[in-house]
C-alpha cells in the first residue's frame, strides 16, 4: 500500500499504530491522527460526495472549517453520528467511519447524474422549478425535496450517551490557544487573574503546531510551546482542549462545548460524552486566528485540491505528505512555505503558480534554490481527474488578457487565496466590522462587549506579531480589571510573515458560464450562481445568500463568505461594505443536541413536583396527570376500570359515604401583620373586616383589569393572621402579584407574606361520614356542626400532629381539610385510610374533584374562566364587597365594556336528549340553520357525566347567558348538531342541605 507518512515527522506517535475502518476497509493510522490525516497517509483523498451534484470530494482543510470531508462515525450501538468532520475526528482502535451522500458506493454514485445536468441546477432552481402546477406540490415536489434534503443519515436509535454541563466564572477567557492566545494567557495570569484558555483542537498551540521551523527566544517552537504550557499551568491557567466556544452571548456569557470521549477507545463507564460550559467572563480575548480562503476557478474542488496551509499542517503536525506531485496556485506568500516544506519532505513540486506578476523576491530565490518552477502572473483555468486530480490547466495573464494554456500533471493542487480573520464570535456580539481595503477583508471595528481581539483575528500576520499582540491584549484585559500585567516580548526566528492579494474568480480564457468554480463547497454554490442571483435582481448579500444558499451549509461559510461577497460585489459594481456581510450565528461549529440538553433527559428532563402523599397514590395504582409542575393523582382505577368507570365510582362513593383527596398542591400564603386585614381588603374583592378569627371565606382575586385571576378559601387564624389558599397553578404568581403590590403600591402597610404551600400537607375529606371519621382524631376542639360550622378554621392536634383544620367543601358534601406539617402527610393519610375502611372510604383524584365541584357549579379558574371573565360574568357578584373603598380591579369593573350588555356569562347547559355529553371547548350558536360561518355566541368550559344529576352536565360561557335561562342553544359538531337548554349552574342539592350535617 502506498504510504504518504513521513517517518519521524509530526506530532503523531509513530510507534503507536491505530486501526480503524472507512467504508468497511481497515486502515492503519497513528495515535494523534484524525480520520482525514490517517486516510491521506494511506493515499485516500476521496472522502465524500458533495450535497447537490454528488461530485467526488476530498478534504480541503485540516481543521473544523472543513466543508467536504463529512463522514458518519459509529462508536458502538446507538452511537452513530452523521456529518462528523473527518479533519476533526481523532482515530482510535475500532472506530468505524463511512462516507455519505453516495449510492451505491463512494467511487460510483448514481446521484452524480446531477453533476452532468449541472446547467439545470442553477441558483434559485427550487424556486423556479417547484412552483407550478400547484397540484404537483403534495404528490411530487415536496416528497422529492424531502428525499433530496439533508446530508447524512439521521441516527435512528436513542442516544445512550450522557451529556454534562457546568457553570464557570473566570476573569479572562481566551478563545484560541495559538501564539496570540498563549501570550494573552501569560500576560493575564501574571496579573493574578483567573484565566481560562480554550482551544477546539486536541492540543493547544495553534499555528505553532504547523510551524515547527520557528524558533522562539532561541528555542525550537515545539519545545517553547511545551515549556510555555507548563508555565501557564504553574500560573493556574485553566487550559481546556477539544473545547469549542460555540456562542458569545450578552454580557460576556460564552458557551463552550467540550468533547470528552469521542477521541477515546474505551471511555470510562458512564463518563459524559460532551460537556457544555456556561462561562461568565469579565474579559474575553478572541484569539481565533484566521482561515485560509480558496481560489475560485473551474474544477477547484476535485479530490487532491486542498488549501496550502492545510497541506502544511498535514505535513508538520501529522507527518503526512498530501501527494507525490504537487502544484501550488496562490495569491499569498504563505503557500510558498507549504511548497518548500513539502519539497523538503520529498514531494515533487511541479510549479508554484502565483497570480501576482511579481511575487516576493526572497521567495522566488528560495524556490530557485530548490529548483522549483515559478509561474508568476498566471491563472488557473481548469483541472482534470475524476476521483483525484490529474492535472491543472494554467495560463499566463498579460495586460488583463489570458494567454495560451498549459497543463501540468499533479496528484495534489494546493491553493491559497489569502486569509480571512475568524470573527464569528465577534459577530455574535453584534460588534461592527470595518472593510479593510488593503487586506481586502473585514476587520473588527466597534466593540460592544468587554472583549479584545488579538493576533490574526485582527489581521496581523506571523508568529511574532501574534505573540506580541496577544501579550498586549492580555495586559489590556488585566488593565480593564484594574490589574497590571507583565508582558514579555518574544523574539522569533524563521517566522513566516507575508502578504497577498484577493480575487474574485480567477480570470479564464474559457466560457465562465460553464465553469464549475466552487465558492461554497458544501452547498455546491459556484461563482456563476452568485452572478446569476445578482442578474435576477438580488441586491443585498442576505438575499444573494438565501437565493444561492451560499454560506448556509453546516460550515456557515467559513471558506465561502468572503469569496461570495467579493463576487457579488463585483457583479453589482459596488464596494464590499456596501453589499454587506451576512451575520454569523451560534454555534460556531455544529454542536450535538445532547450537549444542549445536558442532564435534562429521561427522568431528569424537567422538575416534577410530588406531594408527600404521591408515593401512596403510586403504590395504590393511581393514574397521574400533570398540573403545572406537579403531578397529581388523576383517578384510582380498580379491577381494570377505565377512567369513566373509576371516576363515576369515586363520585358515587364520596357522595354516599366518604371520599379522601390529596389537596397538598393547593397554594398557601400566610399573611401576618397589624395591617393584614387591610391588605386582604385591598387585594381580594371580598370584605374581610368582619370575618371573625376562626372563620373562613371564599376569596376572589382580580387583576387590575377586573378579570378573575385566582380564588380560594381563606381562613382568619387571629386578628393579624390569615391563611390563604390559592389554586395549584396560581400559587407562585399570586404571591408575586401580592408582593408586587406590597412593595410598589403599599409599602406603608405593616404586613408580610410567606409561602407555606410546602409547609403543609393537605387532606380533604368529603361525604356524609367525614365528621364521623375524623372526630376521634381531633384533640382539644369540638367539631360538632354547632361549635364548628361550615366555613370554620381552627388550630388543633390531629392524630397527634399539630394541625390546621378547615371545615370547607368543594363538593357540596360535609367536608374538612386537614393541614399537617408536610413530613406527616403520608402518615396521616394512611391513618385516615385505615380508619376510614369502616365507612368504605374512597381515595379519589383530580377528575372526580372536578366532577363533584361542577355538579355544584363551583368554577375552576383557568377552565371556566380564561382571563376575560369578571366576577359578574362568572355569577360571583356576591363575592364583591360593595361597601369597600377599593380593591384590585374595582375601577376596571366600572369600565363601559365590562358593564355592557351581551358579555359572555357563565351558565349551565343540559343537553335536550339527556344523554349526550358535550365536548369541552365546543362552540355554541343560537340558530343552527344560519349560513356558515355561523355566529358563535360562546363555548362549553366544563362537561362531565354526572351520576348525581342523572345525566351529563356542562358549564358554558354564553353571550348574555344570565338572561337566557330556559332558552335553547345549539352545539354544532362534525357529525351532528346537539340541542341544549341554558340552566343555572347548580345541578345538585341547590339548597345546600348536605352541608348542614
Amino acid at each position, binding site marked *: 500500500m502506498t504510504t504518504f507518512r513521513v517517518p519521524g515527522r509530526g506530532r503523531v506517535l509513530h510507534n503507536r499504530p491505530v486501526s480503524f475502518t472507512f467504508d468497511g476497509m481497515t486502515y492503519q493510522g497513528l495515535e494523534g491522527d484524525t480520520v482525514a490525516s490517517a486516510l491521506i497517509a494511506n493515499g485516500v483523498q476521496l472522502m465524500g460526495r458533495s450535497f447537490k451534484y454528488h461530485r467526488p470530494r476530498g478534504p480541503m482543510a485540516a481543521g473544523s472549517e472543513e466543508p467536504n470531508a463529512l463522514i458518519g462515525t459509529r462508536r458502538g450501538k446507538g452511537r452513530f453520528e452523521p456529518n462528523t468532520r473527518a479533519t476533526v475526528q481523532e482515530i482510535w482502535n475500532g472506530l468505524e467511519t463511512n462516507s455519505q451522500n453516495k449510492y451505491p458506493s463512494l467511487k460510483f454514485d448514481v446521484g452524480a447524474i446531477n453533476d452532468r445536468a449541472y446547467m439545470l441546477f442553477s441558483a434559485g432552481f427550487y424556486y423556479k422549478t417547484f412552483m407550478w402546477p400547484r397540484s404537483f406540490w403534495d404528490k411530487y415536489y415536496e416528497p422529492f425535496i424531502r428525499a433530496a434534503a439533508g446530508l447524512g443519515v439521521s441516527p435512528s436509535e436513542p442516544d445512550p450517551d450522557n451529556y454534562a454541563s457546568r457553570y464557570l*466564572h473566570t476573569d479572562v477567557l481566551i478563545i484560541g490557544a495559538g501564539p496570540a492566545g498563549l501570550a494573552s494567557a501569560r500576560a493575564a495570569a501574571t496579573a493574578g487573574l483567573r484565566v481560562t484558555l480554550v482551544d477546539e483542537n486536541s492540543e493547544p498551540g495553534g499555528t505553532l503546531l504547523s510551524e515547527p521551523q520557528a524558533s522562539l527566544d532561541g528555542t525550537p517552537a515545539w519545545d517553547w510551546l511545551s515549556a510555555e504550557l507548563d508555565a501557564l499551568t504553574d500560573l493556574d491557567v485553566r487550559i481546556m482542549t477539544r473545547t469549542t466556544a460555540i456562542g458569545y452571548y450578552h454580557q460576556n456569557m460564552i458557551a463552550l462545548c467540550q468533547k470528552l470521549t469521542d477521541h477515546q477507545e474505551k471511555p470510562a463507564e458512564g463518563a459524559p460524552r460532551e460537556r457544555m460550559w456556561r462561562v461568565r467572563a469579565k474579559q474575553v480575548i478572541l484569539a481565533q486566528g484566521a482561515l485560509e480562503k480558496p481560489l475560485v476557478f473551474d474544477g477547484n474542488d476535485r479530490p487532491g485540491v486542498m488549501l496550502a496551509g492545510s497541506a502544511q499542517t498535514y505535513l508538520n503536525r501529522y507527518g503526512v505528505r498530501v501527494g507525490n506531485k504537487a502544484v501550488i496556485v496562490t495569491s499569498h506568500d504563505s503557500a510558498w512555505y507549504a511548497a518548500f516544506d513539502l519539497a523538503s519532505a520529498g514531494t515533487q513540486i511541479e510549479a508554484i503558480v502565483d497570480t501576482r506578476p511579481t511575487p516576493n523576491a526572497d521567495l522566488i530565490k528560495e524556490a530557485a534554490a530548490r529548483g522549483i518552477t515559478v509561474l508568476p502572473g498566471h491563472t488557473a483555468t481548469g483541472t482534470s481527474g475524476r476521483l483525484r486530480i490529474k492535472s491543472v490547466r494554467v495560463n499566463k495573464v498579460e495586460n488583463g488578457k489570458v494567454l495560451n494554456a498549459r497543463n501540468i500533471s499533479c496528484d495534489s493542487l494546493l491553493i491559497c487565496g489569502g486569509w480571512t480573520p475568524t470573527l464569528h464570535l465577534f459577530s455574535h456580539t453584534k460588534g461592527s466590522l470595518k472593510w479593510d481595503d488593503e487586506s481586502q477583508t473585514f476587520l473588527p471595528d466597534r466593540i460592544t462587549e468587554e472583549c479584545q481581539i488579538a493576533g490574526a483575528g485582527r489581521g496581523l500576520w506571523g508568529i511574532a506579531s501574534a505573540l506580541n499582540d496577544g501579550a498586549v491584549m492580555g495586559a489590556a484585559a488585566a488593565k480593564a480589571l484594574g490589574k497590571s500585567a507583565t508582558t514579555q516580548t518574544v523574539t522569533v526566528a524563521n517566522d513566516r510573515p507575508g502578504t497577498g492579494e484577493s480575487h474574485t474568480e480567477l480570470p479564464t480564457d474559457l466560457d465562465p458560464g460553464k465553469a464549475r468554480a466552487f465558492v461554497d463547497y458544501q452547498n455546491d454554490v459556484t461563482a456563476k450562481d452568485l452572478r446569476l442571483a445578482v442578474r435576477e435582481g438580488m441586491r443585498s448579500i442576505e438575499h444573494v445568500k438565501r437565493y444561492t444558499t451560499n454560506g448556509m451549509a453546516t460550515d456557515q461559510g467559513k471558506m465561502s463568505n468572503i469569496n461570495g461577497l467579493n463576487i457579488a460585489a463585483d457583479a453589482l459594481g459596488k464596494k464590499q461594505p456596501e453589499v454587506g456581510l451576512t451575520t454569523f450565528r451560534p454555534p460556531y461549529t455544529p454542536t450535538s443536541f445532547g450537549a444542549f440538553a445536558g*442532564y435534562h433527559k429521561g*427522568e431528569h428532563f424537567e422538575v416534577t413536583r410530588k*406531594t408527600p402523599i404521591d408515593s401512596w397514590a403510586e403504590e395504590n395504582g393511581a393514574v397521574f396527570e400533570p398540573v403545572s409542575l*406537579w403531578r397529581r393523582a388523576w383517578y384510582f382505577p380498580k379491577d381494570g376500570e377505565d377512567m369513566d368507570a373509576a371516576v363515576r365510582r369515586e363520585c358515587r362513593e364520596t357522595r354516599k359515604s366518604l371520599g379522601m383527596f390529596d389537596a397538598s398542591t393547593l397554594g398557601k400564603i400566610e399573611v401576618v401583620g*397589624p395591617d393584614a386585614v387591610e391588605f386582604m381588603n385591598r387585594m381580594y374583592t371580598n370584605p374581610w373586616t368582619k370575618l371573625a378569627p376562626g372563620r373562613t371565606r371564599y376569596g376572589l382575586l382580580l387583576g387590575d383589569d377586573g378579570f378573575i385571576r385566582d380564588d380560594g378559601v381563606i381562613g382568619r387564624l387571629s386578628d*393579624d393572621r390569615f391563611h390563604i389558599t390559592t389554586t395549584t397553578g396560581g400559587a407562585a404568581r399570586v404571591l408575586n402579584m401580592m408582593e408586587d403590590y406590597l412593595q410598589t403600591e403599599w409599602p406603608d402597610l*405593616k404586613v*408580610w407574606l410567606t409561602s407555606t404551600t410546602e409547609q403543609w400537607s393537605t387532606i380533604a375529606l368529603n361525604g356524609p361520614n367525614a365528621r364521623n371519621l375524623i372526630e376521634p382524631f381531633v384533640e382539644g376542639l369540638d367539631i360538632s356542626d354547632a361549635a364548628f360550622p361550615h366555613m370554620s378554621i381552627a388550630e388543633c392536634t390531629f392524630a397527634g400532629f399539630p394541625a390546621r383544620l378547615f371545615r370547607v367543601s368543594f363538593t357540596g358534601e360535609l367536608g374538612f381539610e386537614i393541614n399537617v406539617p408536610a413530613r406527616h402527610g403520608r402518615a396521616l393519610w394512611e391513618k385516615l385510610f385505615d380508619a376510614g375502611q369502616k365507612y368504605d372510604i374512597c381515595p379519589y383524584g383530580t377528575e372526580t374533584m372536578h366532577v363533584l365541584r361542577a355538579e355544584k357549579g363551583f368554577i375552576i379558574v383557568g377552565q371556566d374562566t380564561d382571563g376575560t371573565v369578571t366576577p359578574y360574568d362568572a355569577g360571583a357578584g356576591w363575592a364583591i364587597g360593595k361597601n369597600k373603598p377599593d380593591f384590585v380591579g374595582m375601577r376596571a369593573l366600572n369600565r363601559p365594556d365590562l358593564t355592557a350588555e351581551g358579555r359572555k356569562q357563565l351558565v349551565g347547559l343540559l343537553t335536550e336528549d339527556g344523554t349526550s355529553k358535550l365536548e369541552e371547548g365546543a362552540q355554541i350558536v343560537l340558530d343552527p340553520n344560519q349560513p356558515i360561518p355561523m355566529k358563535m355566541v360562546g363555548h362549553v368550559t366544563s362537561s362531565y357525566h354526572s351520576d348525581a344529576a342523572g345525566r351529563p352536565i356542562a358549564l358554558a360561557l354564553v353571550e348574555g347567558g344570565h338572561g337566557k335561562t330556559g332558552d335553547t342553544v345549539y352545539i354544532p359538531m362534525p357529525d351532528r348538531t346537539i340541542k341544549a337548554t341554558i340552566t343555572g349552574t347548580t345541578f345538585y342539592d341547590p339548597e345546600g342541605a348536605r352541608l348542614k350535617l
Partner: protein
Amino acid sequence: MTAHVDLNMARTLAKSSAVSVELLPSVARFSLRAGTGEQTALSKALGVALPTKIGQCTRKNKIEVLCLGPDEWTVLAPEDQAVKITDACEAIYAKAPHSLTEVSDREIAIQITGAKATDLMTIGCPRDLDLLPVGEARRTIFDGVSAVLWRDGSDEYRLDLWRSFAPHVISLLETGCAELAAE
C-alpha cells in the same frame, strides 16, 4: 420523572471519592419579616443580632439567622427551641410587629462536602462561588430550582430546597457525584 426520595430520614444520599451528599436532620425553620424599626427588639427576643447585609449570617446559642432581603430573614434552630422562639417573638409582637411564620416542613437541607464540593455546585448553580465567603449564604437557583446556598467551609456547602423540588436536585447531585469521581 425523578424517583421518590424519602425526605424524612437523614442519611447519605450519594458518596464518591470526590464528594459526599447528605440529607441533613430536620431543624426548626422560620421566615421572619419585619421593618427596620423592629429589628433591635427582635434581635433581643431571639438572643442573636439580626444581620443587616443580604447574605450575611449571625449565629448564637445554636440559632442561625440569615439575612435574605431588606426585611427578610431565615431563622434556623434546633427543633426543641421552636416553641421558645415562637413565644419570645409573640411576646414582643404588640410593640414590635413582625411576621414569624414556621416553615420547618417547607424545606429540607442537603450538605455537600469533599474536595470537589465546589465543582459539584457548578453543575447547577450559576453564581460565582469564589464570591461566596465561608459563613455566608445566598438565595440562588440550582438546576433551575430556587434554593438557598450556604457556604459552611471552603469545601462544605448546604442547600436549602423546597420539599417538592428536592428530588430533582438530589438526582442531579447523585449524577454529578459519580461524574466527578470518574474524572
